[in-house]
């Protein structure tokens, strides 16, 4: 049976895992390679490394970090942050990533999705969408808006439409972050996740708002998510993939329990 994926997300700045609310007050949370290996051992189904520096001078540091992290990681490994061209993606793949996550660069140049997909396969292209409900709209969920620049600037696109276009252009998965829910630990935006999942034929990864095991069960059920991203819930040993999955299994969610 196909299981629901729990994806551990590491925010990386200048070669270190960091944690902060809304990218402010960053706390050092360790070495990316060590953290990724630990998550994989504890049962994470996939690792996402998100480079939040994404400056020009930071690129080499990132590639070194990806190389070091990939070396002894034998679960799918996705890298995002600052990938603006097919060449950037190629370097990240050569360093050992299996997938890249692209966000604002795909909005600015939608051809980037097919450019990467045609060389590396659709399964290697994750289109990340930062979404906010549109409270002024008749249907705030179905008319939710895409945001860029860490959720500060509207991109002038509707989330559901953009997800469909990304699929048509050859994205393999959608990583949907609710900027409304992000950092709240009050639960995923299940309505929004379900609206996107129903609109596309590719898997949707839900992100933003995880605080309890019940939130994951909810987004896999009501939210129709195929995978869910967890970041802060895992840091500093608060909760591990293993304990999360054991609880999900008890709740009847199909998960891969680590050996």
């Amino acid at each position: 049976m196909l299981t629901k994926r729990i994806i551990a997300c590491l925010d990386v700045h200048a070669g270190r895992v960091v944690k902060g609310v809304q990218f402010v007050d960053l706390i050092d949370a360790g070495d990316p390679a060590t953290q990724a290996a630990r998550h994989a051992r504890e049962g994470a189904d996939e690792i996402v490394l998100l480079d939040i520096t994404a400056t020009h001078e930071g690129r080499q540091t990132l590639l070194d970090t990806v190389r070091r992290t990939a070396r002894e990681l034998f679960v799918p490994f996705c890298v995002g942050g600052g990938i603006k061209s097919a060449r950037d993606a190629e370097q990240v793949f050569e360093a050992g990533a299996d997938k890249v996550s692209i966000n604002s660069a795909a909005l600015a140049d939608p051809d980037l999705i097919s450019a990467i997909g045609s060389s590396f396969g659709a399964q290697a292209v994750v289109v990340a969408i930062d979404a906010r409900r549109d409270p002024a709209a008749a249907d705030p969920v179905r008319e939710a808006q895409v945001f860029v620049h860490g959720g500060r600037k509207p991109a002038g696109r509707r989330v559901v439409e953009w997800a469909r276009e990304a699929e048509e252009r050859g994205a393999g998965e959608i990583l949907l972050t609710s900027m409304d829910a992000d950092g709240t630990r009050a639960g995923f935006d299940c309505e929004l996740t379900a609206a996107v999942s129903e609109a596309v034929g590719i898997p949707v990864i839900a992100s933003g708002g995880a605080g309890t095991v019940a939130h994951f069960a909810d987004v896999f059920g009501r939210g129709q998510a195929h995978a869910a991203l967890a970041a802060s819930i895992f840091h500093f040993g608060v909760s591990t993939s293993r304990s999360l999955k054991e609880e999900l299994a008890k709740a009847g969610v199909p998960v891969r329990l680590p050996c």
Partner: protein
Amino acid sequence: MITVIDYKAGNLTSVLKTLRYLGAEPVVTDGDLSLVESAERIVLPGVGHFAATEKLDATGLTSAIRAAIARDVPFLGICVGMQWLYAGSTEAPQQPGLGAFSESCSRFAECTEKVPHVGWNSLEVREGSRLLAGVEPGEFVYFTHSYKGPVTADTAAVTQYIEPFAAAVERGNVMGVQFHPEKSGETGLKILRNFLAWQAKGAGC
């Protein structure tokens, strides 16, 4: 020597890295046939589109691989590399596969489930599989694909998604896995170790 075939379909880094981690010293060829002729084992990875296997014909690698298989060189196809072992795929009907298995690959049936099939799924390992020896019920492997091979007498493991399909195929020294052993944690490493330890039946040591 273990030879990894590069036909410019996706990224070889993960496969090479994993083989090295397991102590192998893979060499890569995208057309040097001598590296196939002298190979002790051959791995054909592959993600993406079945049409990319056209490069194998154009470079002469198909014939070299066919000859190596006839010499009992252990061969492992991964993902599209497994699909290539069949007669063909509806993904690229004009492009023939190797034909080691006479059936063809086809796309998952249209339904409410997502296609591609992405994620960790379980294996029903058939008795007698050498490649999957030691894989216990309840172990999972990582898939990402839209096309699949049918369940036949040569199927070494069955996985259920929309319908039962061949997660692994094995006959003599020819093996294929639809999943990605290099991305399947300890279970995947165990399967690759089995392949690296594979000795042709009847061969002296």
